[in-house]
């Protein structure tokens, strides 16, 4: 059943991506003198998918703290790791866009720096999990770090509205931006959906690996007890 759902999601990802790439290719090359703007169709959805992952991980971590069920911790870890991949893709594609638009790869402004700090915080989350052996202690500390990380995510999300720096202000309609011409915005949401489906597949695979690791641990304990 799980396998079939994953195949369906994979088919949806491929289908949606081909259709959406075709739409993006047909859009005007330049909008209001903004060159290479089509990077936004992957840069922004990657950020939204990463933030979604981090917040899903936050809720799962909170449920773990309430129930003590390690399944929620495993889910939070899987979703955080996938979110981290999207966040990395977001920051790297942003750097490439910055090189084109500003002539520099990086600037230490509030928007970019807060995203980098957020990214490092979640890399710390993944590294910390590998360093702690006791599952309960690992889950508790991970949940605390997930809560702290989510505050960082909220700051990054708002930073593009709060600070006036080189990074563009919000342009999407739902953020009150209104900076994009009609018809240019929907492909961003379609790619967000593509990344969400892809993220669900990757998180599911990562969850299964967590189950394998748990099984290996219990078999080892069983072997040692004999």
């Amino acid at each position: 059943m799980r396998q079939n759902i994953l195949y369906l999601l994979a088919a949806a990802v491929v289908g949606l991506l081909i259709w959406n790439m075709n739409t993006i290719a047909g859009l005007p090359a330049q909008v209001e003198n903004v060159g290479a703007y089509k990077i936004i169709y992957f840069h922004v959805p990657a950020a939204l998918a990463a933030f979604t992952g981090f917040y899903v991980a936050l809720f799962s971590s909170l449920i773990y703290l309430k129930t003590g069920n390690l399944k929620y911790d495993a889910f939070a870890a899987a979703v955080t790791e996938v979110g981290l991949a999207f966040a990395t893709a977001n920051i790297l594609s942003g750097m490439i866009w910055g090189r084109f638009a500003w002539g520099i790869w990086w600037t230490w402004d509030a928007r970019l720096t807060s995203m980098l700090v957020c990214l490092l915080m979640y890399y710390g989350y993944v590294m910390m999990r590998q360093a702690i052996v006791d599952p309960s202690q690992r889950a508790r500390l991970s949940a605390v770090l997930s809560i702290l990380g989510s505050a960082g995510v909220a700051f990054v999300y708002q930073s593009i509205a709060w600070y006036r720096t080189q990074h563009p202000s919000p342009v999407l309609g739902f953020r009150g931006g209104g900076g994009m011409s009609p018809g240019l915005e929907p492909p961003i949401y379609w790619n967000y959906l593509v990344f969400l489906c892809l993220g669900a597949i990757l998180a599911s695979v990562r969850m299964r690996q967590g189950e394998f690791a748990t099984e290996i641990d219990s078999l080892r304990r069983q072997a040692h007890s004999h």
Partner: protein
Amino acid sequence: MDAREFQFVFYGLLTVWLVITVYVITLARRERHLRQELDRVKRMIEKS
């Protein structure tokens, strides 16, 4: 879209998919390692 612009858009898209591909490869390698480890531990228990 001029050549330079196209180049940057191309590299932007390439980077996004490269990061995702690297993560998928990491997942696949980890899965293979875990399956091998699981088989090894199972064989060890059967022997004992």
